[in-house]
Each structure stands twice: as C-alpha cells, then as structure tokens.
C-alpha cells in the first residue's frame, strides 16, 4: 500500500539544530516534500557549530541545505523528495505556502516562534518547536496540536516572556536578532535527533494525542529528562482560533485593490499592516505609499529600517480608506500568491496563483 507522503515545513532550516535535522527528515520515507525557510547566508563562524562544509560559506542557507538533501534523496520518482527553498523570514512567507502536515521550528527568535504558533493555529497544522541552551547543555522539544482548548506556545507566557520579545526601537541599542544560544554542534545534533524522533511520531498520527501539549527537556549535563504536560491557559493572550480558509482564484498581478474590496468588503493580512507612509528615523527620508510592510523596508539612502510613524499604517483596507490607491493591483501593494486575506466577517481566502 502506498502510504501518504507528508509535507513538512522547517523554519530556521539552516541553523544549529535545523542543519542537523534536515538529513534525518530526508531519510524518512513518509516525507515527500520539505519546505525550508531561512533568510540567512552561511558565514565562516557557522562551520564550528552547524552541519555544513567549507563550500557552503557564502551561500544562502536554504540553497546549501536543499542541495545536500537532493544528494541524499533526489526529487524524481515516487519515492523522491521534493524540496522547496524559501530564502526569507518565516514571518514574511505567505502563510498559504506553509499549509502542510507539520511545521517544525528550529528558530532562535522568540518573536519568530510566536509567529509560527499563530500560523500553525490559523492553518490547523500541528507544530513542533525545539531549543538549545549551550551553557547548560539543555535541549528542549515541544509539540502543539492546534485547538480551541489545546495549550499553545503563548499559554505559558507571562509578561516576562512578552517583554523578552525581540524589538527594534528608536533610541537605545534595539535589536531584532535573537541572542546567541552558544550551543555546540553536538548539542544541536542531539536536539535534532530528539526532534526527528518526535516528528516521526507526530506524522504517524497515533502518537499525536500523547505528544501534543508536552514539553521534553533533556539535560545532557546532569543526565536527566523532564517531561511537562502543558495546559490551556484561559487567560492566554492568543485567541486560539483555527480558520476555515477557502481558495480564491485571483491573480495578484491583475486584480486591483478596488475589485478585491468589492468582493471582500475589507481586506486584511494577519501578521502585517499596510504602511501608508514610511519614514526613516535616521535621515528623515519619507515615502508615501500603500504597501504591505513586508519585508521590513530599509531606507534607500542610509539603510536604516524605515518605520511607519504613529498611525501611518492601516490594519485593514476598507473602500473609503483606500481612495487614490484603488486602481493598484494586489501585487503592487505587496500581496503574493499564497497570502491569506481576511475580508469582512472574518472570511478567509488564500490567494491562488491562477494557471
């Protein structure tokens, strides 16, 4: 009997854990498709802790890894592995492209993991998260199964965790990057192996009930394992909603904002806002526009991150707010095939690339 071939998305695919995890996934016959997401390039320093060779330095992480995966299992034939490489931040990937059987996060940024949690719930896709703490030789693996009453990443967060979210701000050394985990290659490999075993269980389905909502911590320093069952927090700040998402055969490059608003009533892309005016806090350069603020725009003059000053952005496009921009196409305001747009009454549609 031909088993169903699963699609797995790996966010942070090229990092300390991700680079060790991918070969395991490529060797799982149940997986037929891997989507790799990582915006970074390999640097010489990565050689010490990540599963790469000298030739990979300077390459985009997803491309270098995709190349390796194709050498392990080529894409052709019934048992082939189809690899999709997306060189962008997980937050910026159109969410429809992440609809899969499992989303795996090997990210070092708390803010990015928060996004993955949200995406997984909206799409109704299980997700697994892992982390490493090099200074204490700790490995952590969590699994989440979306549901209104199921625990999510944010259920265990208090204001300390929210205040530790990476944030860029105007004065003071703000940073959008996660802090280095200082994990060795061996620890990354350990996390990857533990994760791969859990992924196999999650994909198999039967083990889902037992694994979901659990956290496993492996303390390699003191040879101890801790398993915690998490609970749904009734005061969780995330709404835990899973969406019904319809397909919408609409070409972003020919459908105008006006037409889209006629169909949808209003238009919103969760996780992003529309910038009406972008300004550079460094040199004062200003751009009037209507565009989805994704990826974050850098100043053409001084390369600082451009910001939408107070109220210079729109959460939701509505016919009376769009005005002179209604003739622009959805592509011109930054939408792409795979984006999930929410209209009035929270009706959700995924933009399909029409053939």
């Amino acid at each position, binding site marked *: 009997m031909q088993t169903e071939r699963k699609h797995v998305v790996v966010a942070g695919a090229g990092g300390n854990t991700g680079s060790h995890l991918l070969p395991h996934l490529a060797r799982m016959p149940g997986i037929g498709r891997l989507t790799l997401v990582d915006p970074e390039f390999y640097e010489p320093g990565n050689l010490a802790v990540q599963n790469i060779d000298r030739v990979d330095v300077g390459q985009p992480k997803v491309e270098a890894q995709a190349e390796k995966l194709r050498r392990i299992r080529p894409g052709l034939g019934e048992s082939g592995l189809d690899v999709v490489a997306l060189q962008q931040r997980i937050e910026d990937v159109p969410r429809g492209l992440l609809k899969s059987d499992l989303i795996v996060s090997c990210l070092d940024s708390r803010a990015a993991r*928060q996004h993955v949690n949200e995406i997984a719930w909206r799409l109704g896709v299980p997700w697994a998260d892992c982390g490493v703490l090099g200074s204490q030789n700790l490995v952590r693996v969590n699994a989440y199964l979306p549901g209104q009453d199921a625990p999510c990443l944010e259920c265990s967060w208090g204001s300390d965790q*929210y*205040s530790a979210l990476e944030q860029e701000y105007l004065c*003071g050394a703000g940073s959008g990057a996660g802090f280095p985990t200082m994990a060795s290659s061996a620890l990354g490999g350990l996390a990857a192996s533990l994760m791969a075993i859990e992924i196999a269980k999650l994909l198999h389905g039967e083990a889902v009930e037992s694994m979901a909502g659990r956290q496993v911590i492996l303390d390699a320093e003191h040879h101890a394992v801790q398993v915690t069952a998490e609970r749904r927090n009734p005061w969780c700040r995330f709404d835990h909603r899973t969406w019904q998402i319809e397909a919408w055969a609409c070409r972003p490059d020919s459908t105008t904002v006006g037409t889209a608003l006629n169909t949808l009533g209003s238009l919103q892309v969760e996780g992003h806002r529309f910038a009406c005016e972008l300004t550079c806090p460094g040199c004062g350069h200003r751009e009037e526009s209507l565009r989805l603020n994704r990826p974050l725009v850098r100043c053409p003059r001084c390369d600082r991150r451009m910001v939408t000053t107070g*109220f210079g952005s729109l959460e939701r496009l509505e016919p009376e707010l769009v005005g002179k921009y209604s003739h622009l196409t959805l592509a011109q305001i930054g939408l792409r095939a795979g984006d999930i747009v929410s209209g009035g009454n929270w009706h959700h549609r995924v933009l399909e690339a029409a053939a």
Partner: protein
Amino acid sequence: MSDNRFSSTDPVYERFMQRQLQEGMELARSSDLLRLHLSPMTPPHFVAEFLCNGLIRDGAGEINQASDFRVGIWFPPDYLRRADPFEMLRLFTPGVWHPNVSRELPLICIGRLTPGTTLVDILYQLFDILTFQKYNPRENDSLNKTACAWARENAQKFPIDRRPLKRRPLNLEVQPL
C-alpha cells in the same frame, strides 16, 4: 465607563481597552497636568494633552519653555502580544526640543515597550520625557543629536517641571487646640 468603539472579536483585548480607558480617565481626573480624550478619528486612539513645562525650539532656533504637548496613543488589536513603539505613538505638537524627539518626524521614543504595557504607564513615561526627568544621553542613537549634546551641557536645569503628574492630597488637617 465603557465605550463600544473598542468592541472587538477578541474579548481579552476588549476588556484590556475598557480598563485602559477607565484607568487613564481616572489619572487625568486626579492630575492638573494631563487631559485625556478618545479621538473620533480612525483608528480609535487616545489623545493625551500634557500641560507640564517642556521645551520647544521655535522657527528662529530659540529654545523656549512651553506647557502644552499633545501625543496620540494607539493600541493595535495585537498589542497584548507584540508591540511596535514607532507605530503606537504620534507627537502632534511640532518643534519639541528633546533628545528623544525627532525634529522632522512626529516621533517620540519612550524606549523598549513590553506588549500590554498599560496606558497609565505610557502616560507616566511620556510625562517623564517631556519634563526631562528622563532622556537618552547617548548621542549615537538619539533622535535629535543636537538636543542630546545640548542636554548634556544643561543637565543642571533638569527636570524642567518638578510637579508630580498626579495631584497629591494636601492633608491639611486642623489639629484641635
């Protein structure tokens, strides 16, 4: 007090907003230096009017004391989960002279902002900045480098206003003879 303009599909956010409105108005009532109202504009935002002393640089380049500063504060629907301080605040009063205030843009920087920080906390932070009880002393990441250098030279004049934001009860009890 409740306001249906905060009605949302998210009950946690809605409750949060109603509480901000209540607490903010309470602070404004017990302050001589703050007026607060909800703007009728979209998106729904608060406009805080500070009547404390601060500094304005006029067209001729002269730095003068002023005592009316207006700041708009917007809480986006996902504010409890992620916050972008750029987007949330807009300084309506032009010409404010301060290391944390841009000269060209309506930007005021209150530093890191934890998602879910209450309106009252933000009002206190804005007040501390406008009155120079707090400012960013590092020129390289200041929004107004000249004001930053100026502030270093004139630190002995700060704060510009020593009155507390919240009126203190006078406690004038008449002692029986």
